[in-house]
């Protein structure tokens, strides 16, 4: 019997939502780690019972929690994130040099093949990995030591490494994205990196086409086409067909191309989803209408998906890691809001229903399809 497990990180704890393959009735477990911020919870593709969670607090710092039974029980593992060598400086908001300081883990990306290997994207931006189930963490410092590091600067949410994508066909290739430095690619398993921001245009930086400095909000890939990436930039929805060597804008007829979340259909690699947000100073949907936009053509041509979503007086946000899909035959799409709702569609976005609606502000949503 197939089933779905939705892993939800919120401002005040983690929740695990489970359903059978019908996706009609949902069991809600949580809050786990009540009162802590759960930036991200994600399961291992190699062992769905192995989950990792980033738990943090302004008072007590960073914890990493691990579950080996699908989220029923958890245990803290290593939380020592120390930059390799002398960290140096990046740009502060005012353009002055500011020392690199570890603040929190934004994103955990388990290996596609080894449950004990997991990557962590952190603020201030750096990439760490663990090969012992999260007990010990080592920085892949080639990224931070890329010559452009001193030019990186924080976005409003902090200088976070928030996206990590592992190429399923090439274990040497990793993509990451940083707000506000941009996207980077490694072709040697994280030892060395190159910026992949050609084609991005950001009017809010001195050189709109600079090599680094772009506020990339999120990137997604369909596993069948690892050279095709879709990006929600601060403004602009972009795609690349050559692993980031060149990006082209595919915002097309979107009513606003600002947003955070972007994801791709599990079975249709040209079908992508975004949640347009009014602007960077108004982090809520246009006209109080919560609408997911879907393109079945890999961008440019978009349709609004509204059935089941509030179409008046809705002023929530959908954050960058708060959208995910399942891999059941009829692809399920899920997203969480800062208003505490998690919406699900079991028909690829045509119809939506809230599967839980009064959680703390949702920071992240990940989905596991259980066989």
């Amino acid at each position, binding site marked *: 019997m197939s089933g779905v497990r939705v892993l939800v990180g919120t401002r005040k704890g983690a929740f695990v939502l489970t359903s059978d393959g019908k996706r009609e009735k949902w069991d809600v477990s949580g809050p786990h780690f009540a009162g802590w911020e759960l930036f991200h919870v994600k399961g291992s593709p190699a062992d769905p019972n192995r989950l990792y969670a980033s738990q943090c607090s302004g008072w007590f*710092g960073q*914890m990493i929690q691990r579950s080996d039974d699908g989220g029923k029980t958890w245990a803290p593992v290593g*939380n*020592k994130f120390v930059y390799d060598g002398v960290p140096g400086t990046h740009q502060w908001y005012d353009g002055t040099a500011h020392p690199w300081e570890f603040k929190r883990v934004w994103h955990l990306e388990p290996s596609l093949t080894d449950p004990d290997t997991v990557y962590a994207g952190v603020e201030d931006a750096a990439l760490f990995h663990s090969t012992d189930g999260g007990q010990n963490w080592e920085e892949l410092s080639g990224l931070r030591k890329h010559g452009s590091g001193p030019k990186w600067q924080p976005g409003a949410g902090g200088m976070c490494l928030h996206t990590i994508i592992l190429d399923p066909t090439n274990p040497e290739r990793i993509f990451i994205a940083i707000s506000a430095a941009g996207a980077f690619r490694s072709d040697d398993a994280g030892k060395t990196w190159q910026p992949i921001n050609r084609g991005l245009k950001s009017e809010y930086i001195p050189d709109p086409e600079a090599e680094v400095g772009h506020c990339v909000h999120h990137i997604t890939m369909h596993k069948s086409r690892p050279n095709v990436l879709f990006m929600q930039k601060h403004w602009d929805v972009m795609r690349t067909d050559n692993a980031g060597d060149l990006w082209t804008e595919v915002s097309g007829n979107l009513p606003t191309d600002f947003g955070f979340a972007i994801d791709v259909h599990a079975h249709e690699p040209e079908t992508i989803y975004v949640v347009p947000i009014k602007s960077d100073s108004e982090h809520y949907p246009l006209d109080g209408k919560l609408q997911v936009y879907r393109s079945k053509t890999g961008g440019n041509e978009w349709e609004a998906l509204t059935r089941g979503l509030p179409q008046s007086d809705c002023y929530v946000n959908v954050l960058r890691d708060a959208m995910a899909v399942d891999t059941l035959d009829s692809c399920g799409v899920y997203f969480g809001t800062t208003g505490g709702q998690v919406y699900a569609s079991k028909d690829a976005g045509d119809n939506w229903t809230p599967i839980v609606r009064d959680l703390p502000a949702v920071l992240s949503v990940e989905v596991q399809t259980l066989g």
Partner: protein
Amino acid sequence: MIRVVLPAHLRTLCGCQGEVQLEVRGAVTVRAVLDALEDRFPMLRGTIREHVTQQRRPFLRFFACAEDLSQDSPDALLPEAVATGAEPLLIIGAIAGG
């Protein structure tokens, strides 16, 4: 035995209830107490003081015997009443909403 009162979230994290009682050998200082605390509850490493610098985390304070000891050297002797177990060392989180 040295008595330590932890903030609620740290009690949950280390699975303890009420005060923690610790044996501290040698001089009873904040550093010695935290070393003993972290030896007993390794998951608390990094939550009260930073991993590398060993600096107190900025939203935490150390109180004892109606005094704020937060700015004292971590190697300063704690009050006799703490050393004898008559009074606890309080680790307090900043009051904040949200």
